[in-house]
């Protein structure tokens, strides 16, 4: 099924309505957005790959998209949305649609916060612990030595973060706590957005 959707799109029968219908029912994207996504995705493929169904595009090539190129979380985004068995962050077209859907305007707060949590969860262990938070802050302030916060500041900041959000006081922020925090910062929905 999945490959057929891709095939239909690749074989230029753009007007196969049922295909679009199912894509629209499963994502938050409109027809234009899906078409645009497809165009941009096929641009990343080489000529022989275009004929294959369900090709994976490697993380490097995905990250060459200008929308992702300078994003500090670009690698995490690829890893979270990739269904690859090798965990190499490569994306199929459907993964790519998933990504765009989660980052689209009409996606719900719930789904956005879920994916944000997974993007911020650098070690994939299901909670944001001190290590994750440190990495998160470093990602946001820049990785080099002169831009990152000093160790004392970092410690204080992480303490503040935990104090603010760690309801059950276990030293980590879990998904529900994270969503609780997110639901109280209304700017998140408008800023967690990538438009092609």
């Amino acid at each position, binding site marked *: *099924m*999945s490959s057929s959707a891709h095939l239909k799109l690749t074989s230029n029968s753009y007007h196969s*309505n049922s295909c*679009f219908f199912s894509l629209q*029912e*499963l*994502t938050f994207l409109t027809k*234009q957005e899906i078409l645009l996504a497809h165009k941009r995705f096929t641009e990343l493929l080489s000529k022989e790959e275009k004929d294959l169904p369900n090709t994976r595009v490697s993380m490097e090539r995905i990250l060459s998209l*200008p*929308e992702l190129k*300078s*994003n*500090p*979380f670009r690698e995490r985004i690829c890893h*979270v*949305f*990739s*269904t690859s068995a090798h*965990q190499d962050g490569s994306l199929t077209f459907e*993964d790519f649609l*998933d990504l765009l859907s989660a980052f689209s305007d009409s996606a719900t707060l*719930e789904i956005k916060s*879920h*994916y944000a949590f*997974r993007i911020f969860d650098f070690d*994939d*262990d*299901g*909670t944001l*612990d*001190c*290590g994750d938070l440190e990495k*998160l802050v470093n990602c*946001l*302030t*820049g990785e080099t030595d002169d*831009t990152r916060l000093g160790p004392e500041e970092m410690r*204080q*900041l992480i303490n*503040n*973060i935990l104090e603010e959000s760690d*309801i*059950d*006081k*276990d*030293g980590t922020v*879990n*998904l*529900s706590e994270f969503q*609780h*925090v997110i*639901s*109280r*910062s*209304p*700017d998140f929905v*408008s*800023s967690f*957005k990538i*438009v092609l």
Partner: protein
Amino acid sequence: MTSYSNGGFFNPAYHDNETLEIDKRYPRKNNHTNPYAREAPSWQGSGAETHNGSVGRTTGGDDSLARMPWGGWEEESQRGRESIPMGLISTRHHDRNHSAFQINPDSQYDRSRIGQLPSSISANMTMRWRGMTMRSMSMFPDADPARLAFTEDAIRNEMENEEQNQVKELVALSTRDRIHAIRSLPTSFAEKKHIRSQVLKSAKKSRKNAHLADFSENVSLFFRRCGYSVRSARQTLQLWHGIMKEIGGKFGTSVLSYFVFLKWLLMFNIFSFLVNFGFITIPLLVYDPTPNIPPNVSFRGLELLTGAGYFRYTVMYYGGYSNKILVGLVDYNMQLAYFFTITLYMVLCGVALLYSMASSFQTNYVLAAPASSGAWQLLCSWDFSVTNERAVRQRKNNLRVQLQESLSEKAQRERLTLSVKLKQFGVYLGSWLLSTGLAVGCGASIFYLCQYEEQRTTDAPSWTLLQEAETLLLPFVVSLMNLVIPLFYSLFNKFELYSSQRKQVYALVVRNVLLRGSILGVLCYYWMNVVPEKFSCWESVVGQSLYRLVIFDFLFLMLGSFFGEFLSKVLGTTLLPRLGVPEFDIARNVLELIYAQTLAWIGIYFSPLLPAIQILKFFILFYLKKVSLTHNCQPPRRTGRAAQMQTTFIALLFFPFFVGAVSMVAFTAWRLTPSKHCGPFRGLSNTFIVVEVWIAELAAKPGSVWVVWIYQHVIESELFYFMLVLIVLVVIYMFWQVIQGRKQLIVLLKQQIVNEGKDKAFLLEKLQNLQKSRPNKILKQKTPKKHTKQRSGNVSAGGQSTSNAMLQALFARQQLEDEEGRRGNGGVPVPSDISTSSALVQAMMARQRAEDQEEDTHMSDTDFSSPSAFTQASQARQRAEVEAWDEHNGAADYHENAANTSSAVMLVMQARQRAEDEDRTQWVPAHPQNPVPAGSSALIQAMLARQQAQNEFDDGY
């Protein structure tokens, strides 16, 4: 089992409580579904080993085979127990190999999935399935060996059950909800597709009347497709997609919000232009295409600025419309058309504004934290739409500065002395007085200017060029004030030093609103009271002044972006580098837009085609601001709060400005006498008379009695409005009460969360203390090898009970988390909450007791009692399990089941009570030799209670 509430079901937090150690270790095959897959080979290996062990045990096979792994198990569990509190407190200390009892079910599970599940798609699991399987999985470690044998099947069944349950629940939803629910599943695309096909299949199956169902399905499919096409068509029509993206990519969402607002206003004006043009102007033009201009008036060019002269006689203004009934294909009453179009337009504007204001209030204020200067706000405000490399770097820098500021602010906040506070207060007071004084002074000077203008102008049909140019003085001064005074205001901000940027912006906004409000108020007073007495066609005169104001406002907007942005950029880059490149002042710019729109609203009655000018103005302004922004400005240094700012802007647009404009128009229509010789309402004592005349005409016709009745009994009757107001007041009061109740509930729930947290912290501390007091004893146990071997018979009992207890604790913890998650997100108080903490306490107590017991057994080597305790325990467990399974099977009948559950809970409670009494009788007289049966029975009680709680949990929700 299936009767979860939907709220709980679609809330991932409810199923996805990640703090539990087990949960984290739970491997999944598909990486996308599950972010937590970290399959370490060693882990797999150890899991497999244990698996073998358990099989050996259950088949009752070779003793040595059985013993070795169990010994391993025991040791592992000892270590595991050690590690548990650590894991609870800080999950950073991962050592994937150290607790076998956690791994065991996982690995089996993993194997079964890899080996036996038909497709990779079904192997994928949603968060919910995971949550559910977690719950069932935690049964295995405390299961007796016989149970382990069918775990593979059980797990597979469980999984299939889960999928079916989910599908069932989705089928039960309405089509719309179902689509939304599937779309919102946080899983991969393929998985969603699979679930969707399953749901569609079973939805089809469950229908009784196939034909009807097919038909309704097709209809809904058709409508959905229509909906999607409308959505995509709307997107095609979207203006400036590329520009918007570019701005967002460079300057972030907060600056983008200005452009979104500008676009929204543009659309609004296009709509109002279409309405006015379509219903008022086109009929007139069709009937009489040439305007009746006096012969001595010609187009001179200055009209474009002043709006007077030639324009005065066109359809631009009120005066250009006739009061006749246009006779064509159908009779068209111009008076009625004019009145109803304007009214309808105002009502539609009001509804649209009210709606957007209410919805953005709901999302941005009600949900937002009251005092959130916190770090999360900063961390979550990272703009993913920013794509420009330099902007990203700048943003990172700004964010770092902001983080550092927030840290130092927090430290400094307490250290303000009284004198500093007084000084600050003085500065605030002074600047407020000064700004209010400025606003009042502006109003007064405008008033005198109006009087001066009144003396200068005459009511002649055509003005000389000089006279016409003189009219430009007033709009010029007004616009100049609007440009210069806000600059002063932003200068005040430099001295005031507000503690937060938000306060600063709000102060600025309030001052600007005061200024513009006072100016507009004076102008309106002049138009309402002075102009009608002096001019013969006064509506057109007012229309002209509004036209001039709109045009001058536009010119000064351009000047403003030149002075405000271009000049300060030049200054900042060349002369005074200290100032730096300016930022785009969103608040000031948005207020300018709001003011411009207010002029258009006031003018809608006097000059129906003013929206056309407005469209042109906004269109040019968009490009102008875009160019000015990209060339002159730098991205904002502070981020965040964009959403709330936007809400404030819409509220401002609605409240003082729109309401003011509407009341002015309404006053004109109800109170003022329309001019005698021009316009659609000539000869009437006020505008509203039109409706009365129309109703009187209708009363003569037989077919429209109901219209007359409605008019007389609804529109004209005071009683109706009295009742309406009364009803509205009652409804408001009721809602207010509901809100008060909710507020109390929120307070209580928050307190409860805090309390639960404290409970947990307390219990964890206890656990830790216990752990600390243990190590030497454990060492003692571990050192003599003989000891372990000797105990191999009852090792399982001891080890298992320990791990049981630990799992109890963990499970209780998980439940607690579940509860918390649900409460935090759904906000629904759940009756079973009460049981949670008690279950937790029970479990903890049981654990403690089990440990004591174990210790005692080890220390005193009284082995004889242990096996019996074990058999007792396992028997009791078996019973409990049977009970539990019965309940599971009987889940079809909910009522019976509920009764069952509660009675079972009662039983358990009683049993517990008894056990505790027993405990006490045994422990108080101090029989250290034989505490085992009591201990284990207490353990069983706890387990039973846990089981019950779980069942209840499963069935009830």
